[in-house]
């Protein structure tokens, strides 16, 4: 039976936590903040074609060059690139594991593919690249994916294609000049076949954005740039779904998803205000995360190494 959007979101968090435990660290908070948004995008908002059976990620074929005919992008995980279907351009490459987990939860990627995560010679990279599952443009240098998505959206308008272009971004990217160049362009050229979901978790590498470099009021700034921007609570699936259908004739749509970087894993709150990368410091802390994983697991899983607190 198909999973519900809430189940997909829970699955994203659980899988990313599993891997964080396995590797003694990882980009865990990104999964906490993005789980519902990615789940609702893949399950209910985006009109993506089927991949058929879940795809097993391929080995890395080498970088693109005129001499490498075997090169591929990770776009195949989002279904065929035909005119009627939407496209998904994923910008914050550090969230890669959350995307892989989402692809597994939605039946697009073989779950065995995660065994290749961060393994040399495979495409399932820790910080996603354009050959990684679910990705199809070079997105690692923050701020470049939105402009590329605008190019794709403009081209699709020229070709009179019905499919839209959805973009997922992080709020940190709104400190970058190119992002605003892109919104200026998207508004000027009336790219209303674009919808941008932004993870507004208010944190970045060095800490709270209000301390590092404030970007608020983000909705007012975007609306002043000519976008149709609105704020929603990013863990409310219904609200996210509703926001996606906001009319935005002649304007790009921007859904600002207010999220918590520790949503679903309260233990993570102890890392405040530095959520960017979680490093598990010692066995005691690892045990606490194991207990979190046990709590999140749908059935009694045998989580190796678990030590029960006294009295339990």
């Amino acid at each position, binding site marked *: 039976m198909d999973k519900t959007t809430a189940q997909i979101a829970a699955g994203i968090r659980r899988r990313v936590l599993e891997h964080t435990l396995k590797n003694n660290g990882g980009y865990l908070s990104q999964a906490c903040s993005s789980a519902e948004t990615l789940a609702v995008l893949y399950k209910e908002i985006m009109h993506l074609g089927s991949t058929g059976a879940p795809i097993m990620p391929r080995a890395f074929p080498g970088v693109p060059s005129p001499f490498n005919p075997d090169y591929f992008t990770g776009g195949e995980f989002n279904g065929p690139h035909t005119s009627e279907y939407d496209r998904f351009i994923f910008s914050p490459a550090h969230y890669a594991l959350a995307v892989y987990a989402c692809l597994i939860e939605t039946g697009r990627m073989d779950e065995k593919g995660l065994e290749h995560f961060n393994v040399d010679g495979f495409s399932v990279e820790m910080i996603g690249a354009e050959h990684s599952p679910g990705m199809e443009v070079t997105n690692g240098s923050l701020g470049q994916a939105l402009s590329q998505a605008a190019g794709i959206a403009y081209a699709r308008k020229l070709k009179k294609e019905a499919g839209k272009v959805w973009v997922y971004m992080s709020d940190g990217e709104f400190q970058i000049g*190119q992002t605003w160049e892109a919104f200026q362009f998207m508004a000027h050229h009336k790219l209303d076949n674009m919808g941008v979901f932004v993870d507004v978790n208010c944190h970045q590498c060095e800490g709270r954005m209000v301390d590092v470099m404030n970007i608020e009021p983000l909705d007012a700034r975007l609306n002043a740039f000519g976008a149709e921007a609105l704020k929603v609570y990013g863990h409310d699936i219904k609200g996210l779904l509703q926001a996606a259908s906001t009319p935005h004739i002649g304007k790009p749509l921007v859904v600002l998803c207010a999220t918590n970087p520790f949503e679903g894993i309260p233990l993570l709150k102890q890392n405040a205000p530095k959520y960017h990368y979680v490093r598990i410091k010692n066995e005691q802390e690892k045990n606490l995360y194991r207990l979190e994983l046990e709590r999140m697991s749908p059935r009694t899983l045998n989580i190796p190494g678990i030590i029960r607190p006294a009295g339990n």
Partner: protein
Amino acid sequence: MEILNKTHAFNLVKWAKDKPEVLVLSADLKSSTEIDEFFDIYPDRFISAGIAEQNMMSFAAGLSREGFIPFVHTFAVFIYRRAFDQVAMSIAYSNLPVKMFGFLPGITTPGGATHQAIEDISLMRALPNMTIFECGDATEVETILDPVMAVKGPVYIRMLRGDIPRLFDKNEPFKIGVNRILSQGTDIVIISSGICTEEAIKAVDAMKAKGLSIEHQHISTLKPFNSKQLLGPISTSKYGVITVENHTVIGGLGSIVSECMAENGLPKKIAKLGLQDKFAHGASKAYLMKEYGFDAMAIIKQTEKMTGMNFNISEAELKQVNIIPMHSAIKAEDL
């Protein structure tokens, strides 16, 4: 010598007629980069990106992923200085067919350091997948578009605008990786590119009249560089090699030729004329070429230094050299 005006403007319009996939992008420099005629005739294929080159370069990458061929037009400095990360990551990494027409190469503008692209070849050459062409005259401007399209990946073009001389026979088009052999000889090898070739032709003619035997080749494909035509003449040259470029001598034509010589074990002396690790400033082209030592007189002086000869050529004499469109001494099928 025939001087042509707005060669690219008229040629592009004619050439693009049956190529609906070609889109022209402008960063507020429509008339300065000779795409105003294109805009008038094909407004639907013209995209105004405004003064926002970082977005423009990544945007172009997105267009090309959907089957279009973006022809980005702006000043060269705004392509590789302002938006190098975008050129590298959005375009070059993915080997996308974005064609970048960089105007005002080197000291071809009195606009000063902000407008003068003096290290573009060094930087763009370092990018994997990048092809680099440079136009030296009106014939090359007129015939570069087919070669640009023939390359499947990104191409960076050092483009000329405005009044451009016709140095080469108009029936001998730009050919990828083929040097134009303008003179054959054994005393010294002069290798020039871009606007420096006109200066080199003047110097070579004057020195040949004094009895020097000169090999002169014009380079228009800087990457991938084909050294095949150069190796023979360099290895047999009596006094060595002089390169002449409208660019810093670090990383451009002089560096490329030096690398080829070293890689092929050719133990000859090489002198690199061009900007000697210095920025230029706002002044006329002729003034700057003289000031920085890569005009015809500078080529003669360097040759005198390397050969120990004194040609006794005055600047007034040089001005009288009448350049007639040159036939290449070698045919492509001979290569």
